[in-house]
């Protein structure tokens, strides 16, 4: 701050607190709704203070699931496990595939190096949403519907991560590679013992971003999976809300909403420092 202005400082705090309240209010309402009996959430105004059914609702949801025609009584822990597996494979897969590709592009001269670079760059431009139908067809032809492979592999190619690693490798001093060569280390050893430890911060940042990306996938699992066994939690919620003719069981739906956002929010908050650094750097 340049000059002392108590009023301006007060206004700044006030606006920030107001902003936080607006951002957090829906979560509070959701959490409160998830701790009541269904009958209490049937008429307005709904309560704004937690009720007594916290343990009951969450236990029912996690272990029995919701009984309705579309969600079909799949217990939520099952959906959470699916989401977790999907997010982990996508995050780690993306990081691994991009890391080795960036290493090859930076540390080797090979034919069509630039072409390879541009082909990878193209993937940045085409979000799943714009090429849904043909991509779906490819996956169906490969027999990968209703499988973890189908859920994850098509999302593993990542231009963003490749770029980040490439930028980073370019800043690593050439002397390190020279020294490694003189000492007789081959490229794989150099990558594993020198580059990998140096990239720790980037790996952490990318992990946060990619884990969130993987966990929050919606359209892709929606198309890929017809088998309830592969329901992910984000899709599951949609099935719980859109029930025909009756009201959704709000307390359970809201408990599912809370559980569905807990893991990615936890990852972002726990790894906040790397996340912000990574976010600002990858996107530029």
């Amino acid at each position, binding site marked *: 701050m*340049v000059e002392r*202005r108590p009023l301006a400082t007060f*206004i*700044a705090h006030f606006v*920030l607190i107001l902003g*936080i309240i607006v*951002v957090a209010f829906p979560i509070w309402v959701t959490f409160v709704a998830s701790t009541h009996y269904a009958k209490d*959430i049937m008429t*307005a105004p*709904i309560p704004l203070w937690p009720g007594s059914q916290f343990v009951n609702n969450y236990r029912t949801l996690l272990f029995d699931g919701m009984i309705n025609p579309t969600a079909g009584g799949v217990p939520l822990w099952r959906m959470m496990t699916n989401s977790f597996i999907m997010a982990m494979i996508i995050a780690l897969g993306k990081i691994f*595939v991009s890391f080795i*590709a960036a*290493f*090859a592009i930076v*540390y*080797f001269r090979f034919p069509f190096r630039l072409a*390879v670079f541009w*082909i990878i760059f*193209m*993937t940045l*431009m*085409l979000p799943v*949403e*714009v*090429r*849904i*139908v*043909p991509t779906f*067809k*490819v996956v169906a032809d490969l027999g990968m519907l209703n499988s973890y492979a189908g859920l994850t592999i*098509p999302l*593993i*190619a990542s231009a963003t991560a*490749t770029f980040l690693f490439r930028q980073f490798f370019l800043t690593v001093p050439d002397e390190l*590679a*020279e020294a490694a060569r003189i000492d007789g280390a*081959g*490229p*794989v050893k150099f990558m594993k013992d020198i580059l990998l430890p140096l990239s720790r911060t980037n790996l952490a940042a990318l992990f946060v971003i990619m884990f969130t990306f993987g966990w*929050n996938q*919606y*359209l892709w699992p*929606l*198309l890929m999976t017809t088998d309830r066994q592969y329901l992910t939690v984000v899709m599951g*919620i*949609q099935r719980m809300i*859109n029930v025909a003719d009756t009201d959704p069981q*709000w307390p359970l*739906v809201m408990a599912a*909403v809370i559980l*569905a*956002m807990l893991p*990615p*929010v936890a990852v*972002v*908050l726990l790894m906040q420092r790397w996340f*912000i650094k990574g976010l*600002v750097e990858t*996107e*530029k």
Partner: protein
Amino acid sequence: MEKRAVFRSPWLPLALVTPQLLITFVFFVWPASQALYQSVLLEDPFGLKSQFVWFDNFMALFRNQEYLDSFGRTAIFSALVAGFAMGLALLLAVMADRVVKGATGYKTMLIWPYAVAPAVAGALWVFMFNPRIGIVAYVLQSFGYDWNHQINGHDAFALITIAAVWKQISYNFVFFLAGLQAIPRSLIEAAAIDGAGPTKRFWTIVFPLLSPTTFFLLVVNIVYAFFDTFGIVHATTSGGPAKATEILVYKVFNDGFIGLDLGSSAAQSVILMFIVIVLTVVQFRYIERRVSY
């Protein structure tokens, strides 16, 4: 920039880029080319026969009032989302940049919606606005406004806009704050010594220096509003009522998977790809220019 020290191996680099290239070809390049190919075909819903029809699918789209409406709707939607999400984020970031005490705490409390899935954000807000039990709908009703997004198209449109804005504020906030903190203090101090107040300083110094960040975020927000909001629409309104919230990406999905009009869906995909490519190219050109001076 090139590396001085390079390793030599005839096969290793190719082996290392193969996984990435394979996935890119199978799941990106090939489907994209299929979309291009299908967009010039007229196919019956069962895929039994198809006919080459040049640009008929595109012509049909641009003659179709429904498609044009969806286009206009998407444009309004992305303008509203980008405008509100960036405006509110900028306000919060400027305030967070001012406070010395508790800045980290505020930051932590504001960034977490980034991690919430669009579909989940939609579920949150659909509950808040539920005509019978939603808390916001209840407050609105007590002011005499009868909110019902299941019947009223404008209400539904407002609902998806609010959910989309809510989710995007945190992302914009992170970037604006980083941008603000990168502005040299000496510039602002010099202006203060010359007698410029906080408002004047903001508009004549801070805002222009922030323009690269603003421009970058504008492109990102438009892309977000165009594509990432599918989850919000699908989980809350399913494009209804009476197509009032059918944005372009939802229409591609609906026509392709529910309506089985493959040619038209492919043509819509191609138009969307074109939009993304234009946006990306604009962004990269701009960033490159900025780097060069």
